């Protein structure tokens, strides 16, 4: 690799850390499935073994993903020897991170087609995406399970619950082309996005501190929440029985970009990198914003007044009411109707594949997304093989969401042009759900044509060049 390319590559990686923000997409097994066209969605520079594919209209791809980086079900409940359902509050609390996220995504491709044109590969597609994310803070549970009087005394606890929902249409096209004698392949994908509904928790700080000296409480809030929908919720309530289809003329538009590259470093070693879904949606329809009127305001509660405490219950009630009124007044939310922008849940992939033969490779993949100023990484080792013309298989081992036991499986079953596929990053998680922090499943049907075995990302010519390079190396 030339120095200038090295620099570009490193700069690109650095950019990924800055740009990527969002929630889990994973697709860790899919990334290396060279028999499955949907892998192009994880890296637009990737190619597949078919020169033409058509996703079955209406069932091209259905991808469901549940991710929980906070706890596993077994941390909270288990069945003990007495066959009782045992609830483990402390174990649950210990398992939590400072901020925890439960994600539930549903991606549905209505249409997806792609074809090879000389050195280029072009895809077109459209689909619906539903992304939800619920954030819950460890501190909130700590308040009840640990209390505010022990380790939490003096600590600023943040009860920053958050909820995000984004529903949008994605119409996309990708293009990739081989360069440098087919060793290098670069690709890009452009998406036109049309937002349907959004609930965006920009900030949800509810900070609570217990003073270690006299135990008085300090509370302050900084909340910023935006909502938007194509339905006119500001003036009318949406009735499912009588929908107004004009609402689909949404002004909630945006775009997304994906970039990818593959590079054959050695005849059997291919490196790849991609950043997927860098983009945004501008929400303009039926927008409502809620914001803490004065985030610098704080309320301090020192207890009841001495005189009230000893006088009578009426005064105590008045004091409590006064305190509640103060909370209501100081933490008042203001409403506005200003359009806003949300970014897509961008992710990046860095991969390396060592090809044993033209049908089998071992993959190493580093994945990450950057959410709430924190990198959420995943790491995957995989075997990817095209056992026969009928069966393609990938077996992966991933570390995702602080979980180290995620066994993934991907299968493609081809009967002539017909292809059924099933991919899961944590296949065991579907069965042993108590231990799972990530459960995902992608399935669908494609029609693939003109399939040919070759190393991913390379054209046949490139492969020849690679073999020639290998011979040169041996002879050298």
């Amino acid at each position, binding site marked *: 690799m030339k120095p200038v390319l090295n620099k570009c590559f490193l700069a690109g990686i650095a950019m990924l850390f800055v740009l990527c923000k969002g929630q889990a997409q994973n697709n860790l097994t899919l990334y290396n499935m060279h028999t499955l066209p949907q892998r192009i969605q994880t890296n637009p520079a990737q190619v597949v073994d078919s020169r033409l594919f058509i996703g079955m209209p209406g069932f091209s791809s259905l991808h469901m993903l549940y991710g929980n980086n906070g706890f596993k079900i077994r941390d909270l409940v288990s069945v003990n020897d007495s066959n009782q359902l*045992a609830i483990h509050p402390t174990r649950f609390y210990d398992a939590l991170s400072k901020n925890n996220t439960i994600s539930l995504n549903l991606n549905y491709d209505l249409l997806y087609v792609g074809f090879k044109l000389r050195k280029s590969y072009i895809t077109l597609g459209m689909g619906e995406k539903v992304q939800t994310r619920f954030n819950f803070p460890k501190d909130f549970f700590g308040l009840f399970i640990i209390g505010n*009087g022990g380790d939490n005394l003096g600590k600023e606890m943040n009860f920053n619950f958050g909820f995000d929902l984004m529903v949008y249409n994605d119409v996309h096209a990708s293009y990739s082309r081989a360069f440098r004698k087919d060793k290098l392949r670069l690709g890009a994908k452009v998406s036109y996005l049309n937002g349907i509904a959004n609930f965006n928790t920009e900030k949800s700080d509810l900070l609570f501190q217990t003073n270690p000296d*006299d*135990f008085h409480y300090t509370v302050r809030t900084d909340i910023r929440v935006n909502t938007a929908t194509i339905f006119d919720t500001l003036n009318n309530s949406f009735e499912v029985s009588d929908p107004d289809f004009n609402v689909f003329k949404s002004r909630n538009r945006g775009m997304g970009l994906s970039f990818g590259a593959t590079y054959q470093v050695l005849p059997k070693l291919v490196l790849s990198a991609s950043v997927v879904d860098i983009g945004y949606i501008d929400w303009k329809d039926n927008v409502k914003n809620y914001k803490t009127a004065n985030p610098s305001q704080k309320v301090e509660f020192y207890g009841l007044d*001495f005189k009230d405490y000893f006088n009578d219950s009426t005064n105590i009630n008045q004091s409590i009411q006064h305190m509640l009124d103060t909370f209501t007044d100081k933490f008042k939310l203001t409403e506005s109707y200003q359009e806003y922008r949300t970014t897509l849940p961008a992710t990046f992939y860095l991969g390396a594949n060592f090809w044993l033969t033209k049908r089998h490779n071992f993959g190493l993949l580093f994945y990450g997304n950057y959410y709430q100023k924190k990198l959420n990484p995943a790491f995957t080792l995989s075997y990817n093989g095209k*056992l026969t013309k009928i069966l393609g298989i990938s077996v992966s081992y991933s570390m995702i969401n602080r979980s180290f036991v995620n066994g993934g499986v991907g299968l493609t079953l081809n009967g002539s042009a017909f292809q059924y596929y099933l991919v899961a990053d944590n296949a065991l998680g579907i*069965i042993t759900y108590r231990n799972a922090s990530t459960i995902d499943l992608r399935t669908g049907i494609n029609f693939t044509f003109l399939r040919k075995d070759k190393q991913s990302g390379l054209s046949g010519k490139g492969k020849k060049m690679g073999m020639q390079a290998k011979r040169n190396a041996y002879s050298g």
Partner: protein
Amino acid sequence: MTRSKKLLPVVLFLLAGFTGCRPEELDTVGIKVDPVRPEYAIPLIQSDLTLDDLIGTGGIGFVKKQSDGFLSLVYRGTVLSTRAGTLVPISDQTFQHTFSLTDAQATALNNGQSQTIPLDASYTFSMGSKEIDSLWIKAGNLTAALSGMIKTGGVLKVTFQDAYQGSGKLSIQLPFSYNSSLPVTASATKDLAGFHWDMTKGTPAYNAVNVSFELTLNPTTEVLSAGDRLDVNLDFKGVKYTRFYGFIGTLNLLSEADSIKLSVFDNATSGQFSIDDAKIKIICGNSFGAELKAGFKQLAGYTPGNAPVDVTGLPASFPIPIPNETNINVMQFDSVMLDKTNSNIVGIVNGKPKKVIYDVYADLNPNGRLQRNILTDESQFKCIVDVELPMYGTAKDFVLESVDSAHFDLEDTYDDMLENVLFRFTGVNGYPIGLETQLYLINAGGQVFDSLFTDRSYKFLEAAPVGADGKVVSTTGKTTDVVFDLLRAKRLRDLKRIKTRVNIGTLSQGGTYPSVKLYSNYVLRISVGVKAKLNLNLKAE
């Protein structure tokens, strides 16, 4: 073997592998929750305590702030006389007159000629020793009634010559008629509100009522005779005044004994306490326009079980201002002060009396009929006795003790939950007064079974240091933790009473206790928080 056949075992193997995995099933009996041991901290109380909160005037006093913020504690006793409206009432009055026909008048009436009979009469308002020069009437009625044996009709007009409302005289008319039966009767009533009545047009020049009658009789065919009578009654009832000019006689206005509770010494048991410049201020208010003499029959410090200690230097009588006609509506005040320069009041106060007792008298016109009096119905005499304790002095081992009933509910169910409770007392003292305290916990048998602190007098807060000007320059603070473990907390169930012992001492400088002053910007902040360590075994079915 074709490729498909080669593949078949692989597919079957994978299918078998997946179908062999069966999702875990939940088939449980009951729920068990692991114990948790949280520790909660709660702020219970916080107050910035003022001097009034700390000392307590018991609702009978107040804290007086001077312009520089210097504070005095004032205990007040007030005695009030009866108002003039009640003290000097106007009794109901009745005046009577009888008309009798002459022979000529009877003949003229029988001959078809009407007759008008004018008559002036003078009466005296019956007020005993009181003399009315004039009255401004605010309520009351005049009822005029006639009863006659003259067989004809007519009208009687009665006019009070010296009673005016504006320019109109008080007048009343009684028309009457003969309807073949005797006696002929008639009556009328007049509201007296708003009339001003001058009663000086007579001899003597008070209580004089001058009335003019005018009786008009119609001609008649009935047979009239000389001597036929017509009786007239004039009744004044419920007369109340806004002003009374005259003389109300010599009256004892007030003779009342009362006491002022000095609650600052309520719970004092021992120790030294001194107020450098205690005072008693007697404030007299008067709105009687009459000579008034008032004074103390007794003024003394008193502690039950001991003889009263009389205050010396009492004036023979209080200075009492007397309003004149122009300011009769406003109570006038004057005062006299007893302090360390003219009495023994400092010594009496420093003896920590529980009360100041006093007996006040007041007499109106004590020297008889020397001057005319002016009163309103609201005229009153008021005597205020202020025991003023300027907060400048010393205290050393000044101990206050009190016993209050108390109880502490700790249900059995909490036995397994509570590991310990920590009470945290945080004090910030802005007063140059130190506090030592102890709380004794007493059971139903009257026995002390626990105390809050281990020391008999726990140094709860040090006195705040003062500068050269005697003012506090900085506050002192202290945090005190008291821990109740489960065993100690359980004993609180026996709690019936709490004995509080507070030892107060002003700032000590090398063993001496210079007098300190208290200012309004001094604050004692007390916070109480609780931290409870729990052991929660939640039971769920």
